[in-house]
């Protein structure tokens, strides 16, 4: 499968699933973000102080299988406007064997062009001042249980929009 390696300016690197997750990358010292397939680089993004964005976008169809797409790219401010360059790396399979992925490049989120090109819920470190990002918070609330006929407490994670 496709996975990433984050490379820092001091020469160190972190492979996906090792020690740090995407949210905890040290973005101030990130030099490059590499997407790998079978231990070979598929795409290298030199960040040059741009805001990295990455998601593994998954689509599950019961009984038919799953499609996985890596959304990766950067966002930057140019002349007061936010611009972005986005790559969509579609994992490919020939029967059970994974084959080289297909890559689409786009400048905007546009789900009508391609259903995988919808906008993610941005994290704070992915947006610029004035843009919306989402924070996750665990909350407990009372809910009426139709089966038991009583209210009971449930815990859930909610996402709250904030403006940076």
């Amino acid at each position, binding site marked *: 499968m496709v996975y990433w390696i984050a490379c820092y300016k001091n020469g160190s690197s972190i492979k996906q699933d090792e020690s740090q*997750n*995407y949210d*905890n990358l040290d973005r101030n010292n990130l030099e490059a973000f590499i997407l790998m397939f079978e231990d070979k680089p598929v795409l290298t993004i030199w960040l040059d102080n741009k805001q990295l964005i990455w998601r593994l*976008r998954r689509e*599950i169809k019961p*009984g038919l299988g799953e499609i*996985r797409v890596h959304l990766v790219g950067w966002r930057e401010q140019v002349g007061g406007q936010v611009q972005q360059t986005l790559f969509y790396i579609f994992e490919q399979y020939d029967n059970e064997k994974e084959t080289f992925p297909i890559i689409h490049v786009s400048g905007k989120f546009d789900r009508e062009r391609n259903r995988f090109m919808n906008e*993610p819920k941005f994290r704070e470190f992915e947006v610029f001042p004035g843009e919306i990002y989402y924070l996750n918070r665990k909350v407990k609330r009372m*809910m009426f249980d*139709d089966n038991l006929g009583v209210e009971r407490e449930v815990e859930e994670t909610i996402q709250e929009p904030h403006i940076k």
Partner: protein
Amino acid sequence: MVATVIILRKTGSGPTTSNITSINTRANTTDIHSTADTTAPIQIPTDTGTKRSFWVVTRLQCTVAPASLIDNVEWYSDGSNTFGTGVACKGNTGTSYTQATGTTGDTGLQLTTGNYTSLTTDPVNVFTFTSAAPKVVAGSTSGTGEFADSFIYQTEVTSDASPGATAQETWTWRFDET
């Protein structure tokens, strides 16, 4: 490691959960998951009325947690009803589980916000939820267990329907992971 996410169908008073990620599930007039049961069909009404399946409650479950987060959950159909003439399907999201009821072998209780109190709004034609305009399913997770709202749907049959099993439809769940 990529999270392991499965799709559940919930039935019974427990409720019982069935993993339907790799299989189909049948919407008929019993509150039991099956892939091919024919003992509890939805009857075709002889008048202007409507017969319904028991409602089907589906939800995502994470069995291996993501490294960080799963969010941006969506649900959609292919936008085209191929169940056939006289067969519709309505659904919506709900924040908790309510067991389906009705008359086994005949018709299910209608899916409404009155009968399923945690339904976000009254059910709509599920074929209006498409890849370009999906139903947003509230919720996210950073751990294991069931997460996000459920999607609940119900098949409706009118007198112009044909006997026998309908063609199969596929619903899609989509989400982002980090």
